């Protein structure tokens, strides 16, 4: 579980996060949504420890990150998996090498065990036969799945995804969304997903936080997002005609 209290971050005069409070439960797909520039990525990077916030507290399993010793910080980072927007696969390594990398670097597993684990996770993301391919030789959707495999190979307690289905066709995007949700339930991990894809919101949004100009403007789930009267959120969610129709249908109870 991750708890965030009064998180603030600014870059020079620009206040990006203005006292965000949030709670991300274990075993749930937690979504952060908001327009471009609303502070989603900065928020996620603060959770990952890549950006140091100006103030506020981030707690992992009830303990504040600030109070962690160096050793504990290193330990918590080994419990985190991250799926980057562009995949962030290492270009010079094959798919197999990319996936085994966290195990090689962070564990003392034997070569045989590592190979077994890599086979397991690649099978889990339905990519059993591309071990020796380079990232440049596979499709964008496959790269995302390899990125998910690399993120979960170390059996993390926390999984973070930054716009995991951006640049993908709707069908592949849906496959990725469902895969992340299945993995979250199966491994019972805390998953935080940064997205502005409304399909993801309605498909896997078990807990949704809406950020507006660095402030948490709404919190709920995929079922009560239809019922909300929060003007800012509805303007954002129903910006597309398709979702306006979905909302009308939902409200009519059809």
């Amino acid at each position, binding site marked *: 579980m991750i708890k965030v209290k009064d998180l603030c971050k600014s870059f020079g005069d620009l206040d990006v996060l203005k006292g965000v409070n949030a709670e991300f439960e274990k075993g749930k797909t937690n979504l952060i949504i908001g327009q471009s520039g609303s502070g989603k990525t900065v928020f996620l*990077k603060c959770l*990952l*420890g*890549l950006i140091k916030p100006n103030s506020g507290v981030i707690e992992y399993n009830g303990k504040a990150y600030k109070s962690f010793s160096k050793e504990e910080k*290193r330990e918590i*980072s*080994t419990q*985190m998996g*991250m799926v*980057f*927007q*562009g995949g*962030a*696969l*290492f*270009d010079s390594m094959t798919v197999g090498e990319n996936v085994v*990398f*966290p195990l*090689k*670097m*962070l564990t003392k597993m034997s070569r045989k065990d590592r190979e077994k684990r890599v086979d397991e996770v690649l099978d889990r993301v339905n990519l059993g036969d591309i071990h020796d391919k380079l990232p440049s030789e596979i499709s964008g959707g496959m790269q995302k799945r390899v990125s998910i495999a690399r993120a979960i190979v170390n059996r993390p307690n926390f999984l*973070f995804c930054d716009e995991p289905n951006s640049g993908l066709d709707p069908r592949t995007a849906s496959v990725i969304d469902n895969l992340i949700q299945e993995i979250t339930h199966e491994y019972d991990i805390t998953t935080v997903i940064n997205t502005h894809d409304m399909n993801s919101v309605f498909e896997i949004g078990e807990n949704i936080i809406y950020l507006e100009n660095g402030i948490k403007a709404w919190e709920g789930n995929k079922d009560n997002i239809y019922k909300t009267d929060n003007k800012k959120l509805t303007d954002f969610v129903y910006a597309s005609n398709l979702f306006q129709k979905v909302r009308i249908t939902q409200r009519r109870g059809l």
Partner: protein
Amino acid sequence: MLINYIKSIGQYFIMIYETFKRMTKTSELRRLILQELDDLIVSSLGIVVFISFFIGAVIAIQTALNFSNPFVPKSLIGFAARQSIILEFAPTFVAIIMAGKVGSYITSSIGTMRVSEQIDALEVMGINSLNYLVFPKIVAMCMFPFVIGISMFVGIIGAYFAGVYGGFLSAEEFLTGLQEDFIPFQVFYAFLKSFIFAFILATVPSFHGYYMRGGSLEVGHAATTSFVWTSVIIIFMNYFITQLLFS
């Protein structure tokens, strides 16, 4: 602007300090060093040999053509070629060439990793990305004096070929000049400065790649800036070391 320069200098030294902290796993480090040796040193040998041979030849021809006085012994061509190649051409000129070849490669490869969030991926895994990326390059570049040794040898061979087979002097005269007034300290000086240049060649381009911001266009810009700064620092350090050791 001045404050930005001071900030960058400070950031550069912090980067060096961070590079030697939290070492990467030895087995992985060994693989990375071998990889960098191949990318930075072995792949540069061809161009270094080619340039050294022809520059050595040109030095011999130019020296010969500019000695019109019959009282000046022809062996001086061999002497001048040796002095120019060992003292300046091999260590400094080759370092500038390497700043273009190796420096831009280092900046663009690290810069691309920054743009495509691969460096963030390393950090999220709890790996010291500076140690993982920069340290193997520093170790691999320790072999740079070896490249300089080859450059010296090939440069002198080039001077011999152009001088002797161009009909400017006999082989005996060239070899006499080559051995005339030989001071071993000058070779030590050449290798010492090539060792310092190697450190600059590994770290300055890494700095420009690691701290770059933006997209692919900025990667190209960073590679150009890195070449300019690496060359400027090498030329300045060349002056500084020469002043320090010879004055």
